[in-house]
């Protein structure tokens, strides 16, 4: 009786905001509920996993065995299950493609079920012109359709990730804040996928159909190529004094290039520090970094890169360099997070580490800093927080990372060093190291750590190499680290095609 009352109450609530559809619905084999059990590497004790977490969201069928959802939902996925409207049974699925830059993921159902899913077709074009609705499932797995109104389309930061892409801001009344819901046109085409919903202003941030179409096409043809980057940082050029000092009209166009990275397969960046970008692919870039897009109107210039081009393309860029106008041919490529000096690792990929004689060595990442809590800026080591905040995207050379001694697992072998924590490692066994790959290369079975060189400490941290094996065995037993887990080196710790290094001024 109590359960019935709750259901009635819920139905009464949602009917205000959304039109409940009874009986068969065209979407009843298209929209699915997604349940993800995720587990990620513990950033502080990297040989073990964090407690698993469960998250729910939605997805939409895009093929008879494929469901599209958001990458943020499937992050760290260990188990994925789907439920269809009106059905209690759970269907096992697995993640076959995901991309944090696009915040999209594909789930596959294996084996291919007969007539289980009815795929939706993706709308062509960028801006939906018909009336819109967002479809969702309520707690009883009934389909709810909420009228939606496109309020704006702009380049915004993806929820939960440091990447920017074009998103639709859509106003709708929804009963859920979960991601993965489809934005549909009046004729049932997929106009976007909800990445985030803010109940406070009833606004859903939606990945546009154009991105989805590209993601699906490239996923089926070898893998999503990602978003294009020209490998530079920039800032608006508004200050009249600064503009005049560069010989520019105080009210004219142009943004300032701050720093550049060397693109793949090249020796020098095409763009240079202090260039003023005036035009990109024929579009004049105003002093705030916006341009007049033929479809979107005034839009961030970032859309010219990650919306209108893809990695491998080239852009024609007009710059003011040292007082003269130049036309440049700029190669575009995918900037990988792993090219950064301090990777974000928003996807929670396992990070490399070494436990040797109780010394825990790893590379600095944003995930590591975030492990200190929401106030990591005050809790984490200020030197490391500073490196992330000011030098994250500025490796001096391709492949540079910040190697740290995160902490010491006390043992006889490391007596005297057990207070060390979050120290920057500049060398191992007297050899300079730029990343943990260098350390792996230095340390073979016959070459344990004999000394560490730490930034700011003028004396080597010396260890007895002859004691290393015995110490590792003790540490493995005492701290419950399986012997084979004392070192972890992902297949590609620093990508083989790492290219992005900072150009030096």
């Amino acid at each position, binding site marked *: 009786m109590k359960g019935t009352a709750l259901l009635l109450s819920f139905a009464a609530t949602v009917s205000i905001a959304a039109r409940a559809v009874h009986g068969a619905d065209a979407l009843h084999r298209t929209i699915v509920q997604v349940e993800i059990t995720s587990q990620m590497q513990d950033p502080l004790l990297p040989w073990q996993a964090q407690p698993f977490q469960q998250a729910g969201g939605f997805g939409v069928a895009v093929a008879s065995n494929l469901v599209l959802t958001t990458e943020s939902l499937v992050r760290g996925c260990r188990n994925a299950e789907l439920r269809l409207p009106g059905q209690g049974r759970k269907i096992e699925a697995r993640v076959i493609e995901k991309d944090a830059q696009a915040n999209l993921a594909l789930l596959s159902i294996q084996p291919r079920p007969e007539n289980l899913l009815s795929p939706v077709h993706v709308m062509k074009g960028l801006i939906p012109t018909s009336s819109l609705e967002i479809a969702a499932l309520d707690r009883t797995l009934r389909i709810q359709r909420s009228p939606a109104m496109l309020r704006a389309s702009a380049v915004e930061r993806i929820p939960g990730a440091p990447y920017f892409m074009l998103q639709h801001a859509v106003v709708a009344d929804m009963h859920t804040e979960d991601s993965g819901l489809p934005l549909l046109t009046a004729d049932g085409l997929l106009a976007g996928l909800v990445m985030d919903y803010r109940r406070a202003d009833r606004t859903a941030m939606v990945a546009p159909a154009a991105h989805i179409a590209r993601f699906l096409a490239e996923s089926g043809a070898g893998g999503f190529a990602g978003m294009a980057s020209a490998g530079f940082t920039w800032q608006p050029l508004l*200050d009249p004094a600064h503009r005049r000092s560069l010989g520019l009209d105080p009210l004219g166009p142009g943004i300032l290039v701050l720093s550049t990275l060397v693109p793949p397969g090249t020796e020098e960046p095409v763009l240079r520090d202090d260039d003023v970008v005036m035009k990109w692919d024929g579009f004049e870039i105003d002093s705030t970094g916006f341009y007049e897009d033929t479809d979107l109107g005034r839009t961030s210039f970032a859309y010219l890169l990650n919306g209108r081009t893809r990695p491998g393309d080239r852009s024609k860029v007009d710059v003011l360099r040292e007082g003269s106008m130049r036309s440049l041919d700029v190669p575009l490529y995918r900037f990988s997070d792993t090219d950064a000096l301090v990777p974000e690792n928003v996807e929670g990929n396992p990070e490399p580490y070494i436990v040797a004689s109780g010394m825990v060595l790893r590379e600095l990442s944003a995930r590591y800093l975030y492990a200190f809590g929401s*106030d990591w800026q005050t809790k984490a080591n200020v030197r490391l927080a500073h490196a992330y905040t000011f030098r994250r995207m500025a490796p001096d050379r391709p492949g540079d990372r910040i190697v740290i001694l995160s902490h010491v697992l006390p043992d006889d072998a490391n007596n005297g060093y057990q207070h060390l924590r979050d120290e920057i490692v500049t060398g191992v066994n007297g050899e300079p190291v730029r990343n943990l790959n260098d350390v792996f290369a230095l340390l073979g079975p016959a070459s344990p750590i004999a000394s560490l060189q730490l930034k700011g400490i003028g004396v080597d941290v010396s260890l007895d190499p002859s004691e290393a094996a015995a110490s590792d065995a003790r540490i493995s037993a005492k701290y419950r680290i399986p012997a084979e887990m004392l070192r972890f080196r992902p297949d590609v710790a620093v990508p083989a095609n790492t290219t992005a290094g900072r150009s030096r001024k």
Partner: protein
Amino acid sequence: MRLTAVAHVVPVAQPHFRFLRLTRQAAALLLLALFIPARAPAAAFDRIEGAIVKLYVVKQRANPQMPWLSYPPSQVTGSGFVIAGRKLLTNAHVVSDAKFIEVQRDADPRRYPARVEFIGHDCDLAMLVVDSPDFFHDTTTLKIASSLPPLAAEVAAIGFPAGGDRLSVTRGIVSRIDYGGYAHSGADQHLVLQVDAAINPGNSGGPILYGGKVAALAFQGMMAAENIGYGIPVPVLKHFLADVADGKYDGYPELGAETVNTRNPAIRKSLGIPVDITGGCVVSRLDAFGAAAGSLKPGDVLLTIDGYAIGDDGSILIGNRPVVFQELVERRQWGDKVAFSLLRGGSRRSIEVTLRNPFDPFTFRYEYDTPPRYCVYAGLVFAPLTREYMRTVSRNASRANDLQLSYYMQFAKEDGLYRDRSEFIVLIRRLPHSMNTHLDPFVNGIVDNINGRIPTGVDDLACQLRAAAHGFHRLEFAGMEAPMILDAAAAADTDPSIRGQYGIPPAEMEGRR
């Protein structure tokens, strides 16, 4: 010794609550009515009571964010006591930034003006003088004990803490003798005497007595803990008194040698320490402002100091008590020497270090009694990075520059950030004007150079900004990839009107080094 961190330690001077407080006379009457003593106090206590004073201090500090402005004057009360030579001792934090000081004995309703003769902010001690001879009528003096009291010794803290207006006595025992942070400077640590006698706001500067003599001077307590009060013990008091004997206060000398232990056999082997030597600690970093710079070297293994054997953890035994070897440096004055025997490159050597402590802007002590230095130009307010300013700055992600200030303050020396600089110059504020309206991203940025030249200080930056009449100034900031560009002529033109707009005093009033 310089402090690496101070947590939850607060000085215990008492803010003066003018409107809540009973008048002294009224309180005295109340006490008389309620607590007529059963018997007269012992003569010994009369002698002690006659030496204790209450201090009434009016202070005023500058606003670190708008350094041309002062905070309203505030009144605090503290305690002090008379020592031989008609001098008074109290805490530096009671009388720092004082504009007006009065002292009063419990038995005398009159207040007497006093003035600071010597003040040591690094050890939180001050010596006062009272010019009126009347004050010393019936005044007694306290003697400083010759040595530290033992652990568990019964002590009494005497002073004028919160909770009443008359003299207060609380009793307890010596709980611990240790090194600890001195909150007043925020950057120093010396010996401290921990007692469980109640020490409350207002006790600051009062004596902690053992056997009728001053064993320590109450100065700070620990928040979020019970019955933990701290006193400045005899060795620190004596160091201060010896220091000022020549008519000026020099402060504690600083060795400036960071060391690491050699407990691990591997480090001992790598340093070539012979097996017959069991102790020794190794120099890991030398402070360019310390006394040891130029004498000791990183990698030196310090074996003895003034004949005391240094253990592998850097401790020495004095009177069968292990203390850090820097304790011996603490006991010395400027110009004294300490002798080390050490191993350098496997060879034994003897090295003497002459102790000193030159001005070190990168220690970031709280600063008192000096007008703030700053420069306002074209609505941009530049000032040296100080601990006082950092107290007003939050450290969070949305304000990366604030995080950078914390980093520069904490790692100035360790990461060599101070090299080629005499101070870190911060753009602490922008006074909004069309001239500078796009320059907010630079606020709390650290000036790296102006027109390619590192300014020697705020004064120098001011000179360079004001010198040019045309062209552009290019200011680069640490960690920022875009420079700040100032149109020199426009800045010069607008500076007077911005000053007028915001009521900024003339440039001549800006503090100078």
